[in-house]
Structures are given as structure tokens and as C-alpha cells.
């Protein structure tokens, strides 16, 4: 039987993504996430879906058989906040005013130059600065992005990927990480929500960049946008009802994009920011997901999140001491404590009963992902909860748990097959199924991330 696996592995070494229509993984340990672990069972994959899973499932005659002896099958991981498949810089020149937003390491020199060339700086909210709310990730998707393969090698089969630039960066899409397919085939849900950033990226205060330059400016801008959107809707509805004698409302794509977004993602790392953004979300009356959550290890933060019922995406890019720091400098107690305790955030949130998912925040090397998740496990998170926060919970947060996130009959066949416990050092991912298509893990390559969810407070802390 071992021979069969070896043969299969060899075969896959040159056939990149082989797509037999039916696959049976048998005699494997199956971690379904939604139900109990099956110590020894079979998963049948047909036409990209899970046809059957269980202890005594007959193997169809036409199936390619994978002997899972000594193997474990998990649902594919979901990166709940990603930039995979997104072009380095998003859309129009107007969007790039002030060169703000994250996307560290992604902007090519050419596009950066284009962004700073002859852009009029925004003079107020009416100029809709740093806004491309109408952009949908699925429409911009680069199926040739090399990061797709890299990330998939770490067991990620699905990414919720968002445009990267600006305050209202655009709408994220849930994509399956296929290679060599048309972009459209990768898309599970074209629009899941609006990515909002508060980071200052470029701009700066007192002169250079356009509006807004300070955090309070950005917050006031977002507030104005939602006031404008409500008013826009009101006027549009009135006009649709009876246009006679009424001035035509001006088409505003920024507001259109905001209105069609069914939820928003707001950044919050520190406790103060979590408190601030939860209040802001309540004021805006928008369905909200917080992201970042670095200080959610603090019980006060977990309590706030629990009370509000807001789901949160926790970055597993745990903070570390800067490598080139002046050895004379001593960080503040809070900074030291945060570095010490950040990785305990998932277990704190788990105990508090908060709905949370983990996201990789630019970590894409399988080894780094493994270490980062392991750090959370070492800090008190159970393996089961870690896995759930990377599979079923993000699927629930984005409303796609009916098709993703666990090994259940009828769900999409996104699976990973390992030779041991998923987040252990010595464990290797053997094969990955996305939409039932089998892939092998790729060699390590480097890619960039999105950058921190919020700016550090600097000397103010």
C-alpha cells in the first residue's frame, strides 16, 4: 500500500495539479471539525465535492485510491484576511492620493511613481480620498499570483482576499486557491464586505498629503461617508419614485460601493482601539468584523468583544522585539507584556466565548504558519480550537459554513492530508485538495504581507 502512495507522490512531482474526477482517501484518520474525529475512515471526493465521509464508506470502482494509512485528513485552512491574488496596487490614481494604506512590499516602483505624480490632494471628504469602495477583489484577481501556490503549501485552500490600498480599499472575495484556472473559477463569493483601514501609510500631518492626515480625520471621513450614503439612498429612492420636478441625484460610485457592502472590516489592535472601533461600528450601524486584535489577550478586550458579539480576526503575526533595536532602549511595560502574551489571545478569546478566527497576516511560508499557530497552542489554545479558528469559524463569520470549513458530505472538497498532527514541527503536508483538485506543497518562496492593522501609537503610549 505504501508503494501506491509513493507512486502517487512521484506522479504528482511532475503532474502539477492532477484532477481525477473521483478520489477516495481510505484508512486515514479524519478530523472533520464539525463532528467527532474518525480514527480510521474514508473520504470520497467527486466533482470537487465531498461525496461521502465515514468509517465504512465503500470505495467507488472509478476512484483514484489514496491509502491514508498513517495519514490525517483535515479540512483546508481558510486565511480569513488575505491579499493573495490581489495586484500590487489597486485601481485609480485618485485612489492613491497620499499613498496611504498597507500592502507593504507589494507596490512596484513604477506604480508608486505613478501614484505620487500629478494627483490633486484631497481637500475634504467630498473628494472621497483613498476610496475605491466599488472595487471587488474577484474582479481584480490575478490567478497567476505566485503566492497562491506558496500559501497553499501551508495548507491554505481558501482565502478571503481584499484589495489593499486606501481607507475604503474595496470589497473582499472568498476564493479557492486553484492554479492554472480562470480567475472566475476560483471565486466562491465575490463580495463579503468592505475593507477599511485607518493606518496613515503616507500623507503625514500638517501640510504634505491631502485629507485626511490624522486618525481623527480618517474617522470623521468614514463617519461622513456613512451619513452621505444614507442621504444618497434617501434621495435616490425619492427620485426613483417620482423623478418629475426633482433634480437628478449625482451618481457617486464611492457611496455605491459602500452601500453594496454587506459588512465592514475595521482594524483594532490595542484595547483602546478595540473599544473605539466597537463603539464606532455601533454608531455606523454596520455589521462589523474587527481585525488585528493584538491586545485581545487582555481580559478587558475579550469581555468587550464578547459583550458586543462582534467577530474578530486575530493576526498570528505575533509581535516580536525589533531586531535592530538600540540595546539601550527599554520598551514600555505594555509593549513587553504584549510581546509576551500576544499569542495567548486565541485561548483568552476562546474561554471568553468570543467568535474569532485566525489570519496569517502575510505569513505564508508553511513553516512560519506552523510555528505561529503552535505558539498559540503552547499559550493555552487546544489543537481542536486552533483548527476550528482556521476552518469552520471563519466560514461561519463570512456566512459560508454551508459549503466550507469542515469535512461533511456535500461540502466543497477542500482538504489537506498530513503525516501527523497538523501544527507539529515534524509534520509535513503531503497533499492538498482544492475543489477536489490535488496539489502538492510547493517549495518555499517569499512574498509580502499587508502590514500592521493599525499604526503604533509611538511616543504617546
Amino acid at each position, binding site marked *: 500500500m505504501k508503494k501506491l502512495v509513493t507512486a502517487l507522490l512521484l506522479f504528482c512531482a511532475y503532474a502539477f495539479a492532477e484532477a481525477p474526477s473521483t478520489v477516495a482517501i481510505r484508512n486515514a484518520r479524519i478530523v472533520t471539525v464539525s463532528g467527532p474525529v474518525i480514527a480510521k475512515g474514508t473520504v470520497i471526493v467527486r466533482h470537487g465535492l465531498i461525496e461521502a465521509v465515514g468509517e465504512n464508506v465503500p470505495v467507488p470502482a472509478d476512484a483514484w485510491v489514496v491509502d491514508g494509512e498513517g495519514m490525517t485528513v483535515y479540512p483546508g485552512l481558510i486565511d480569513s484576511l488575505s491579499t493573495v491574488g490581489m495586484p500590487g496596487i489597486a485601481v485609480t490614481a485618485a485612489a492613491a492620493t497620499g499613498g496611504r494604506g498597507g500592502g507593504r512590499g507589494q507596490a512596484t516602483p513604477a506604480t508608486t511613481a505613478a501614484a505620487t505624480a500629478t494627483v490633486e490632494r484631497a481637500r475634504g471628504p467630498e473628494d472621497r480620498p483613498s476610496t475605491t469602495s466599488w472595487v471587488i477583489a474577484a474582479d481584480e484577481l490575478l490567478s497567476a499570483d505566485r503566492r497562491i501556490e506558496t500559501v497553499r503549501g501551508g495548507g491554505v485552500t481558501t482565502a478571503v482576499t481584499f484589495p489593499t490600498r486606501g481607507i475604503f480599499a474595496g470589497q473582499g472575495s472568498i476564493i479557492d486557491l486553484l492554479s492554472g484556472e480562470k480567475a472566475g473559477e476560483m471565486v466562491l463569493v465575490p463580495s463579503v464586505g468592505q475593507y477599511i483601514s485607518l493606518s496613515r501609510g503616507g500623507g*503625514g500631518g500638517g501640510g504634505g498629503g491631502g485629507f485626511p492626515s490624522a486618525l*481623527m480625520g480618517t474617522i470623521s471621513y468614514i463617519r461622513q461617508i456613512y451619513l452621505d450614503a444614507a442621504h444618497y439612498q434617501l434621495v435616490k429612492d425619492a427620485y426613483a419614485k417620482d423623478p418629475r420636478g426633482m433634480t437628478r441625484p449625482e451618481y457617486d460610485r464611492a457611496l455605491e460601493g459602500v452601500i453594496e457592502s454587506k459588512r465592514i472590516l475595521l482594524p483594532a489592535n490595542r484595547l483602546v482601539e478595540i473599544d473605539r472601533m466597537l463603539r464606532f461600528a455601533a454608531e455606523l450601524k454596520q455589521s462589523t468584523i474587527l481585525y488585528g486584535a493584538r491586545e485581545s489577550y487582555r481580559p478587558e478586550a475579550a469581555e468587550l468583544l464578547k459583550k458586543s458579539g462582534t467577530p474578530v480576526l486575530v493576526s498570528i503575526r505575533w509581535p*516580536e522585539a*525589533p531586531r535592530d533595536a538600540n540595546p539601550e532602549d527599554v520598551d514600555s511595560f505594555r509593549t513587553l507584556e504584549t510581546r509576551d502574551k500576544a499569542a495567548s489571545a486565541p485561548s483568552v478569546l476562546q474561554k471568553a466565548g468570543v467568535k474569532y478566527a485566525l489570519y496569517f497576516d502575510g505569513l505564508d511560508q508553511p513553516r512560519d504558519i506552523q510555528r505561529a499557530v503552535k505558539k498559540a497552542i503552547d499559550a493555552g489554545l487546544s489543537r481542536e480550537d486552533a483548527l476550528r479558528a482556521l476552518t469552520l469559524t471563519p466560514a461561519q463569520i463570512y456566512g459560508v459554513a454551508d459549503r466550507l470549513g469542515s469535512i461533511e458530505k456535500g461540502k466543497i472538497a477542500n482538504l489537506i492530508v498530513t503525516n501527523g498532527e497538523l501544527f507539529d514541527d515534524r509534520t509535513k503536508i503531503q497533499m492538498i485538495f482544492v475543489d477536489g483538485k490535488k496539489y502538492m506543497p510547493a517549495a518555499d518562496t517569499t512574498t509580502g504581507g499587508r502590514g500592521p492593522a493599525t499604526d503604533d501609537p509611538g511616543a*504617546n503610549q
Partner: protein
Amino acid sequence: MIKMKSLLALLPAVIAIAPLGAETFVIRNATVMTVSKGTFKGSVVVKDGKIADVGEKVLEPAGATIIDGNGQYLIPGIIDCHSHIAADGGINEGSVSVSSMVDIRDVINPEDIAIYRALAGGVTTANILHGSANPIGGCTLPLKMRWGKDAQSMIFEGATPGIKFALGENPKRAGNPQGGRGGTTPVQARYPATRMGVEDTIREAFNEAKAYKAEWDGYNAKVAHGEHPIPPRKDLKLEPLKEVLEGKRFVHAHCYRADEILMLLRVADDYGFKIRTLQHVLEGYKVAKEIAAHGAGASTFSDWWSYKVEAFDAIPFNAAIMTKKGVVVSLNSDDAELMRHLNSEAGKAMKYGGMSETEALAMVTLNPAKQLGIDNRVGSIEVGKDADLVLYDKFPLSDYAKVQKVLIDGTVYFDRDKEVTGRPAKAAEKQKLIDKEKQNQQQPGRGGRGGRAGQGGQAQ
């Protein structure tokens, strides 16, 4: 038995519900400087967060915690009318000349250590202002220094909000293509670049605000008549200016020179609103009568000048002269460090201009309270006012005086003994974290180090 159990279960709940300031205190036998009702040796009773009794002899409630004030001085909590602490993400929205859409309320950082340090300097309330880069800056509000509470709990509940204006060098420099703060990157010129332009910017903003107010008044009138028109667009830039016109928001105007002070008073008269306070107002002594006639307060520095051209004509007698001309004068910090010794700043008013102890102390307590419209709650030691109190070991207008205890709403927020005795434990806790990190760094194969994860959200 079951009844007993449920009663016992209720007990902690009842305790939890009781407000934190509910502890009853008697501060006994201190020199009480009430500011409004003289100075005497006596006691103060604090109950339910308020001052319940003040006098040479007071009735001490049973079970009260006694604070022995013998040989010490009790003053009302210090109020700083001009501070920039406790705000996240930049104090200036310097990209536009009129930034009234921004609000300090949105960016309060209750974990800013400057709050605790101000508290240790006897400050219990501070007016947190937007910076001075713009002729019309952002919305502002007073905070109580309730260290340890969340952002919204810091806000001085019920206080009239304010808005920052700025005249002179700062707003016109921000518009200068050569100057500004853009560093090496080319800075696009921003109007205004002159004092004339500053005046014009303010006038234009109020022209807009008046039209905006008329639009809303028209709409409200129609609604009152039972009509259902589409409401006008709510404009966050013009809302605060409309509130200024309606007297619902105070104007705190950064200014230096006499000519621009008069300019602003005239602009306010033209548009029918009041300047609540002139901030810095270093040449206020030249136009004190006009300031008093307008009814504006003046919040100035004790003796800080010549740090820029428009500050050359400043004199340390400014506060005293304006006071004698009938202006309500306060001394402010504008600075997290200066904020920690406003008591000795007030003392300087005695040296320069011969203010009495009470007059000097009022400049950092009752007068700023009046300027912020919160003197019904704070600023003096009177029955019924908030128990915001500071206990000093020595005469509080002296450099040698040290704050011993600070109460806000009847709760002790700073206690010197606890602070000093608590330091070794805090230092040890910190050292433990430092050692732990060092130890982890020496271990090979530390999480993420081998990969590219090292930038972990730091140093962007």
C-alpha cells in the same frame, strides 16, 4: 435556607453596583484652600463622589475613611484649559484649513501615561484641544483624569464641547510651500499663507455655516408644519460651526498678537457668536479691556515667551494685568511636562503682578472651570461640587509642594505612598518580562524568527 443562599448570592452584586466613588472620606484638619470661600484650617467630608461638608468643624459620618490632613494643604483639583495629551494618531488634521469635522472624542487614549503624570501633578480635569495648524481646527472636550477607566468614561459628562481656532504663525505656516512639516517631500501650498488669509478662511467658513444653518432651519420649519421634505445633507464640517452660531459649542482660539485678537473678536461680533477663551493670548495685556468687553476668557502662560516672533512682546505680568482689567484668566500648560506643575505656574502670578494666593490658585482651578462652563461642578471646594481634591504636603503654590493624594469624584486616583511603595514590585515585574524575552531570544528555533515574520507590526 434557600432564601439565605440567594441573599448571599445577591450580596456581591449589590456591592458591584455601588459606584466606585461611594466611599465616604473625611479629610481632617488640613489647610483648606476653597478658592471661592477663603482658606482655613478644617475638614472636608466626601460622600457619594461629592463634597458633603466643608468647615472648621464638620460632622464626621460613621464608618468614613479618615485621611489625616494635619500640616497639609487641600485644594480643588487643578484644571488645565489647554492640553494635548491622551489623543491617538496625531493632534492636527493639518491637511485642510478648516478641520471642524474632526473630534478629539474619537481618538481619546485613556492609556496615555501623560494622564497619570498629570494626575500626579494634581490635575483632575483637562481641556483636550486639537493642534493649531488650522484657522479652524477640530472639536474638543474636557476630560477628567480618571486613570484606569475607558475612553468614554474620561469625558467630563455634560460639559459643553468646544472647537479650536488658531490665528497667526501656525496656521499660515502650515500653508507655506517652503515651510510646513512636509520635510523633504514637496509640499503643496495650502491657503491661507497670511494673517489676512486666516481671517478670510474663518469668515468664509462661517458664511458657509450660516447658509447651512438656514437650510436646516428651513427644513425644520417645514417638518414642524407637518410636511415631509427630504432633509439636507448632514455636513460634519459645518455642524460644529452651526453649533457655535447657536451658542452650543465654545470657541477656544489660539492667538498671540493684539491685532489678531481684535480681528477675531470683530469677526465673532459680525457673525453673532462669542469667543469663549483666547488661548496663549500673550499680547492680551495690550487689549485686556476689549477682551473683557467681549466676555472672552484668557488662558495664558505664566512666563514663557520669545520662542517665536509673535511671542516676542509677551510679559509675565500678562495674567495679572488682564485679571485687573476684568478678564477671567487661567494659566495653561499646552504641554505634558508643564502640566505636572501648574501649581507653581500659578504661584508665579503672585510674583509677577501681585496676585493674592486665592487669585493665583483660581487661575488653575476656578477660573479655567468658569472658562469651560463647568464651575457648577468643579473649580472650588464647596458643598455639592464634585469631590475633585488634591492634598499637598506643603503650601501648594510652592515649587517644593508634592501632591500626596488626588481624588476625582470622591475616588482616590493617585496616592503618593502607594505609588512610591509600589515601584519596586512594578520594576521587578518588568524586569521579569525583559529577562524572559532575552532568554527566549537565546533559544534557537524561536517562533517565526527563522522565517520572515520578524517585522511583527513594529516600526512602520
